[in-house]
Every structure is written in C-alpha cells, then in structure tokens.
C-alpha cells in the first residue's frame, strides 16, 4: 500500500472515529433534553452502520457477503419486536394483550 493511500486511509479512519464519538455526544445530549427510545436507537444505528461499513470493512467486501449477513440479522432483530404487546399487557396487568 502506498504512503499516499495509507495517509488517506488514516484520515478516513480518523473522520469515522470522530463521527462515532460525536454521535455518542449527541446521545448524551438527547438523554438530558429529549429522551426517547426511537431517537436513541436511530443514533445507535448510524454509529453501527459506520462501524460495520468502515471499521469492519464490510463496504469493501463482495455485495453477496453483505446480502448474506445483513438482511437475515436485521430480520431476526426486527421480529423480536413482537414481544412489546406482552410487555404492555403486563404493565396493565391484563390477562391478554390488546
């Protein structure tokens, strides 16, 4: 790898690093001024996207690898949301979810 490419890579690494830390700062700001699960998760998802694509180099891999890994994982994680109906049932002590 040439010195120029190395320097450019390090510059991009540092930019992503600062970006992730800045987003962490945004989360702390939101915690005190405008807390909300969806907002927190959205910022976390952006951080995760930066980490997966850049730090873990998934951006540079074959698209078939991204297709093999990401949709299945997201599907499993999204399907776990079905528990919320029971959670809300529990807090209201209802025998069945609405």
């Amino acid at each position, binding site marked *: *790898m040439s010195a120029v490419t*190395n320097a450019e*890579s*390090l510059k991009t*690494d*540092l930019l992503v*690093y600062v970006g*992730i*830390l800045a987003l*962490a700062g945004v*989360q*702390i700001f*939101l*915690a*005190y001024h405008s*807390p909300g*699960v969806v907002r*927190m*998760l959205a*910022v*976390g998802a952006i*951080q*995760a996207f930066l*980490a*997966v694509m850049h*730090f*873990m*180099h998934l951006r540079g*891999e*074959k698209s*078939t*690898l991204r297709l*093999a*890994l990401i949709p*299945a*994982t997201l599907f*499993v*994680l999204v399907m*776990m*949301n079905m*528990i*919320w109906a*029971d*959670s*809300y049932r*529990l*807090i209201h002590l209802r025998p069945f979810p609405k």
Partner: protein
Amino acid sequence: MSEANLTMGHDAGVMEERPFAIPSKKLVMWLFIISDACTFGAVLYAYGYVRNAAPDWPHHFEAASIINVAIMTFVLVTSSLTMLIATRAAKAGDKSGALRFTFITVVLGLVFAALHLREWMSMIHEGVSLFQNPWGAPLFGATFFGVTGLHLLHVISGAIALTVVALGYKRGRYNADDIEIWSLYWHFVDLVWMFVVPMVYLLNVAR
C-alpha cells in the same frame, strides 16, 4: 501436481473457491458475529421488556455515572481505532506496528474493564444486587448486571484472544489475516456498546 491433488487423490479437482472471496475462517468469524448480535439483541429486548413492564424503573444514573460511561465509550471507540490501525499495519507487512497497536488495543480494553468493574463495585456498595435495589423495580439489578456483564465478558475474552493472536503473529504462527479476523470481533464488541449505553444508561438518567 498441486498439493491439493496429493491430499485429495489423483481424480480430485482444484480446491473450491473461497466463499464470498474471503478466507473461510473470516466467514466463520462473520457468522459468529451475526449470531452474537442476535444474542445481544435478545438480551437487550428482554431488558426492554422488563423495563417497560415495570411501573417503578429506577432512574438512578447521576452525572458522575454518565461521565464515567462517556469515558468508557471514548476508551472503547479509541481501542477500535487502534485495532483498525493495527490491521492496516499487518496488511501492509509492518509487523512491529501491528503488534504495537494490537497491544495498545488490549491495554485500552483492560482500562475499559477496570472502569466498568469500578462502577459495578460502586453500585453494589449502594445496595444493588441481582434481585433487589434501594430505588425501585427488583429486576433492575439482574438486567443491569446481566447486560453489562455479558458485554464485559466479551471485552475480557477479546483482550485475551487479541493477546494470544498478537503473540502468535509475532512468532510467525499467525498471519495478517488472523489479526484482521480478530479485529472484526473487537469492532463488534465496540458496536454492541453503542446500543448498551443508550438503552441501559442514557434512558435512565437521574433528573
């Protein structure tokens, strides 16, 4: 005659192409990462379920705790950066640079673990145990120690694994691919923390 034919017999074809054009061991690490992502997802959803179902969930984390968490986040994200630099150095053939930055990553991981254990000790001293605490819902302790403990276990085992791989790389047993594969694990540990912090700490700040 290729070595593959020697081991597989005279009629053996060429070795299979690498899956997705990456070494098999790298694919295995990716598969482990997505399974672990689902595990952490399940644990965090279980935490959310219990929190949502409790009318008196403690909002306990004062500014000092949040500052501690911010420092821990800075340390862990910085360790991800140093691991990235180590991987690039290994790929470029710079063995001493790769080793240096891998060991820096291990040290930062241990600093993170020490800060975390210090916070745990502080909470235990305040009266938090697995099934009781002085503030509210009894399951706060179990979920808090469960989620953060699982993450801490990953950090400590990652630090051990990186040390073993770095020492093997130094001796020539492992190569740059192995450094890259374990850097994937380390970045994953950092990625999980980015969800643990808002879910466990930031949504429960003391007001």
